[in-house]
């Protein structure tokens, strides 16, 4: 023990780390910092866990389009601890997205972005962008069918940007089409570039907390944040009722971060990692690409937007969102932090969470997607009839693709209306003209059906009259 404390004293004398650490650990925090303040440190802990599991995965993962998929199979099914570590990295990615989103919402609700913490907010926005890019590139590195197509879909979205769109798309793909460098550059971005930026961003984010102090809970705030008086007022507050961060406030961070880590490991053990999809062969057209859950809301939005709004939304919405986040601390940098004076903040957060939640739900349902796998009705009890025309019609209902978009008796797609009781809505001539002429989002079938086929399908649909 004596040797250890001598080494400690020697290190402290030569490096001064003891002072630096004390300065950080003992920095005073205002009274009332409670469970609302644990989200940032939990995000950081989740990030550090991602670094650890990410480094571990990178010792086996092969970042090459020829071998990535096989190396992921090895990690998931054969490597000792591979399933758990990949699972932790996968669940950890979700934890990052949820925690940074919650942290953003919390700092917005408590108006912590106001003077003098504008730079804290801006560095946080930069970190948010980094985390989103990590989530996207990570999904791509899971180089299965969805991974490949996520590169294509992202390139298509980038290409909608005026002037620079095509270049950005080619930059993402590493050329004019998907190829080896698509994966290699995503690997470089995911493993070197963005983690480096995140370390810089986190260092800045924390240094700013030390410099400006953690924002006091709004209920302890002055009625208005005034740049002329705020710093003196805050110094006074800390002198009057400040506590050392360690351990008076840090214990909550420790408890919550511990729970986050337990949740990540627990979910990784029980759920395991995201199952690998089909092999990454872009020439296999038997694919139904889907993004990971955190991007599913945007996937749904792009399906549900009216055509005229799509281009402006793809191009302008991310731009407006980014500008709004950057401008917020400058537009609303002073004034009251109390939620009572800022009811719209609560409304905006509720609206954002509700919108994303609803679009995510729709993304899972994906009513717009044709159900290619729908079971043919011909073999089911739904087609049991004495009319041979109706039986033929039931078979055609599947083969002609009607069933991909319409359901009958609970089987089939949900894009178009359920046709089980279509005769209650359409009479015989209306039904025929609808099939032949299409309408709404339905293509006309006049050239796709013979007269006999049309009669058979109509007989089948009118069976229940």
């Amino acid at each position, binding site marked *: 023990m004596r040797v250890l404390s001598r080494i400690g004293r020697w290190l402290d004398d030569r490096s001064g780390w003891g002072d630096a650490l004390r300065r950080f650990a003992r920095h005073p925090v205002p009274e009332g910092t409670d469970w609302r303040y644990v989200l940032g440190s939990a995000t950081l802990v989740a990030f550090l866990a991602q670094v650890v599991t990410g480094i571990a995965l990178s010792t086996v993962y092969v970042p*090459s*389009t*020829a071998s990535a998929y096989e190396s992921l199979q090895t990690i998931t099914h054969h490597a000792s601890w591979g399933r758990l570590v990949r699972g932790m990295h996968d669940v950890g990615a979700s934890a990052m997205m949820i925690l940074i989103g919650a942290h953003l919402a919390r700092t917005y609700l408590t108006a912590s972005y106001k003077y003098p913490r504008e730079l804290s907010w801006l560095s946080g926005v930069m970190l948010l962008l980094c985390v989103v890019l990590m989530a996207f590139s990570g999904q791509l590195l899971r180089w299965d069918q969805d991974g*490949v*197509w996520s590169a*294509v*879909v992202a*390139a*298509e*979205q980038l*290409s*909608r940007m005026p002037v620079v*769109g*095509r*270049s*950005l*798309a*080619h*930059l993402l793909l*590493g*050329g*004019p*089409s*998907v*190829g*080896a*460098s698509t*994966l290699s*550059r995503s690997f470089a971005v995911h493993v070197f570039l963005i983690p480096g930026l995140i370390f810089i961003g986190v260092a800045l984010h924390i240094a700013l907390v030390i410099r400006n102090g953690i924002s006091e809970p709004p209920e302890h705030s002055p009625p208005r944040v005034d740049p002329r008086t705020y710093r003196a007022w805050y110094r006074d507050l800390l002198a009057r009722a400040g506590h050392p961060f360690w351990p008076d406030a840090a214990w909550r961070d420790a408890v919550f971060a511990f729970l986050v880590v337990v949740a990540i490991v627990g979910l990784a053990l029980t759920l395991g990692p995201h199952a690998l999809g089909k*092999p*990454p062969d*872009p*020439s*296999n*057209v*038997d*694919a*139904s*690409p889907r993004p990971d859950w955190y991007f599913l809301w945007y996937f749904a939005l*792009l*399906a549900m937007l009216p*055509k005229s709004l*799509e*281009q402006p939304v793809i191009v302008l919405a991310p731009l407006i969102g980014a500008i709004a986040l950057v401008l917020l601390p400058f537009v609303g940098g002073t004034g009251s932090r109390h939620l009572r004076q800022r009811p719209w903040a609560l409304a905006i957060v509720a609206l954002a969470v509700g919108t994303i939640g609803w679009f995510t739900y729709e993304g899972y349902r994906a009513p*717009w*997607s*044709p159900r*290619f796998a729908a079971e043919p009705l011909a073999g089911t009890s739904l087609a049991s009839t004495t009319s041979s025309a109706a039986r033929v019609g039931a078979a*055609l209902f599947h*083969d*002609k*693709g009607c069933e*991909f*978009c319409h359901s009958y008796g609970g089987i089939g797609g949900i*894009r178009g209306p359920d046709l089980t009781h279509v005769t209650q809505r359409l009479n015989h001539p209306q039904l025929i003209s609808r099939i032949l002429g*299409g309408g709404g*989002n339905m*293509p*006309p079938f006049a050239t*796709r059906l013979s007269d006999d086929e049309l009669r058979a399908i109509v007989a089948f649909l009118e069976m229940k009259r």
Partner: protein
Amino acid sequence: MHSPDTPSATDSPSRRRFLARVSATLGALAAALVAVPAIEFVIAPARRRMPNEWRRVGPVSRFRLGETVAVRLDDATRPWSGDASRVAAWVRRTGPESFVAFSANCTHLGCPVRWVADAKLFLCPCHGGVYDASGLVQAGPPPRPLARYDVTTEGGDLLIRVASLPLA
């Protein structure tokens, strides 16, 4: 060494300003010398054009008149890509020596469209885009008809010229 209390020519403010400028300039130049080649290297693929490359699909006799089938265009120029630089196309034989080839990428967001032969429609699995047999949009969000690839025949084989990913 002179004492810091006795001003001399070596610590005149103008000399300090000069030294600071020289140091900062040299630092910026060194950074640029390292950064420019690295950045150019990273963005170079974005400027690369698709090679004017015909890929052999197989004997013409494989294709039946009027039938629309998916074909795989392998990339022999980049063997290190594995399967990744393969492309799919939908090919239809329209006459003894005439073919049309569609890109399999939906013009909405690039997902692979599927030909439903009985309905004579291309359907997109992602957002429900629908195209007719000639690639024209029938329903859903796609803004443009399916892109077409150049086709030719040579020595009894069908050749398709690959193009870059069809972008907006």
